């Protein structure tokens, strides 16, 4: 076992081998991996519900539609019951999927973009650029992520955009580390040396030669990032740092805290929705990791 240093990617996202199998074989590997298939199936349902929320429940889910605090099963019209304001819990949950996915995906995209730029520049150029950027990565990793998100959201109004931006700004260091480690190992590889000797520009080498080869662990990290962004968003919404006009799962939990004693299902259901979505993303991540970075058996 080698001496671990902080730039080593975690074993979970470790790049095992880079020899890409042929496309057909890889596609079959995806279909055969039960973890990946289960993750995609759950995620697919959540995405479909989010996309067709307006069609399934065309009226504003925030409207009062029935008597308050109906338990699930009490009334066939509200299969998952109603909350203290008489709103349809099922409609709220389906509409809430939108906020979670939207914030999760855009925050991860922002984090990935920053992280990949910082990580590839640091890893490719090395030297003082690397030292400086590594310091910056460390700095952001030292700052408690959630607290930083709270501070950034407090600077501006808590809209979905601000929340996504804040989570993205706080979550890029993980990707930056991963990409930097990849670039450092790929920088000296044969094909990069060849590209250099052909006189390709640095930008071209970074974007066209190294980046595609550095991607597999980043793809795995991306699904985990979306999952973590959804968890962070839920925490923020729970603390009421959210857009009051948008339904969100975390917000539903926050709203129902006072009913914890008499109607705990109002807390349980949105939490289960968050857990299912995050679980699906983690399953996809684990599956991708098994497929993209296979470990050879002894």
């Amino acid at each position, binding site marked *: 076992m080698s001496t*671990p240093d902080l730039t080593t990617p975690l*074993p979970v996202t470790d790049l095992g081998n880079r020899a890409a199998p042929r496309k057909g074989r890889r596609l079959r590997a995806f279909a055969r991996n039960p973890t990946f298939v289960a993750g995609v199936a759950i995620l697919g349902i959540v995405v479909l519900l989010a996309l067709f929320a307006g069609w399934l429940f065309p009226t504003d889910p925030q409207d009062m539609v029935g008597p308050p605090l109906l338990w699930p099963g009490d009334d066939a019209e509200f299969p998952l019951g109603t909350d203290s304001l008489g709103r349809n819990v099922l409609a709220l949950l389906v509409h809430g999927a939108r906020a979670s996915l939207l914030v999760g995906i855009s925050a991860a995209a922002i984090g990935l973009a920053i992280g990949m730029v910082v990580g590839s520049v640091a890893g490719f150029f090395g030297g003082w650029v690397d030292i400086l950027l590594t310091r910056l990565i460390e700095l952001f990793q*030292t700052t*408690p*992520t959630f607290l930083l998100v709270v501070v950034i959201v407090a*600077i501006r109004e808590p809209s979905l955009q601000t929340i996504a931006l804040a989570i993205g700004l706080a979550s890029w260091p993980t990707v930056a580390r991963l990409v930097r480690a990849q670039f450092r190992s790929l920088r000296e590889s044969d094909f990069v040396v060849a590209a250099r000797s052909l006189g390709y520009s640095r930008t071209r080498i970074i974007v066209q030669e190294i980046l595609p080869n550095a991607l597999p662990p980043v793809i795995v990290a991306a699904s985990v990032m979306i999952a973590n962004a959804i968890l962070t968003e839920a*925490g923020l919404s729970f603390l009421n740092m959210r857009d009051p006009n948008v339904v969100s799962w975390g917000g539903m939990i926050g709203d129902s805290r006072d009913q914890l*004693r008499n109607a*705990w299902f109002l807390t349980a259901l949105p939490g289960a929705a*968050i857990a299912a979505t995050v679980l699906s993303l983690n399953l996809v991540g684990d599956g991708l990791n098994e497929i993209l970075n296979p470990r050879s058996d002894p």
Partner: protein
Amino acid sequence: MGRRIAATFKRTAIHAAPTVLGIIILDFLLLQLMPGDAADVIAAESGTATAETMAALRERFGLDKSVFTQLVNFLGHLATFDLGFSPRYNMPVLDMIMTRLPSTLLLMVTALSLALLLGIVLGSIMAAWAGRWPDRVLSVVVLLFYSMPGFWVGLMAVVLFSVKLGWLPSDSNMTIGANYTGWAMIADRAAHLVLPALALASFFVAVYARLTRASMLEVQRQDFMRTAEAKGLHPFFIQLRHALRNALIPVTTVAGMHLGNLLGGAVVIETLFGWPGMGRLALEAVLARDFSVLLGVLLLSSFLVILANMVIDLLHAWLDPRIGTT
């Protein structure tokens, strides 16, 4: 041994210095971005403020100076442990944070120890039965905890243990007005600690369990494991002495990387359980729009993470004899 640890301590301390400076500057920049300044807050508090009193206040706080002068002043104040004054609470920011610090530390240390302990035990069990049913069942459970928001785990635990069973308290860090002393006080505090610590630890138990499993399995493939078996040692002893210690090296590295997240998670958990710590103070500061307090919390939490990371580095040097030798 001692010399190696001392060398490690020196190295990490030198390494941490620029990070501390960087965090201070980041903090200052965020403070500049905040809408309104201390004068606005005071003006809003008193409700009667003329343009002249505002200008006077700004002059008093040095807010009329250039950004650079303000940064120098900020650094100067920090050097004397002055984090500013909270007009809202009429108290120095540092004093406010210091009254909250012990509670947060208690929660953080308990949650981290719990997460490491449970994570390592679960991960080792999973690795020992890899591929068989105990591993499969635990893997699913661990993946679930990896996916559930900690505060929701906390709420569900409140429903079960406080509301339904009535076993554990779910509010504040002690029974208010009970005035327990001695063992009764410790028992009371401990009972109040259980649910928040579990809620805060739940996600990290999963992180460390997954990591321990992976790295224990990695260690099993090493040649020195066969050497140990060839000595006729008991398998349990081999796992404990030869495998676990090697497997813990990557686990502690990652534990250090997650400290920031753990402390961040405390904001939600402390608010949820009415725990009088720094995290709840941060949220109170947001609601009161008292940004000097908010940034003071951010600054101090970051320092706490740096400090904890140094402890982890020392632990690391103790576990791995290859560290700290030249």
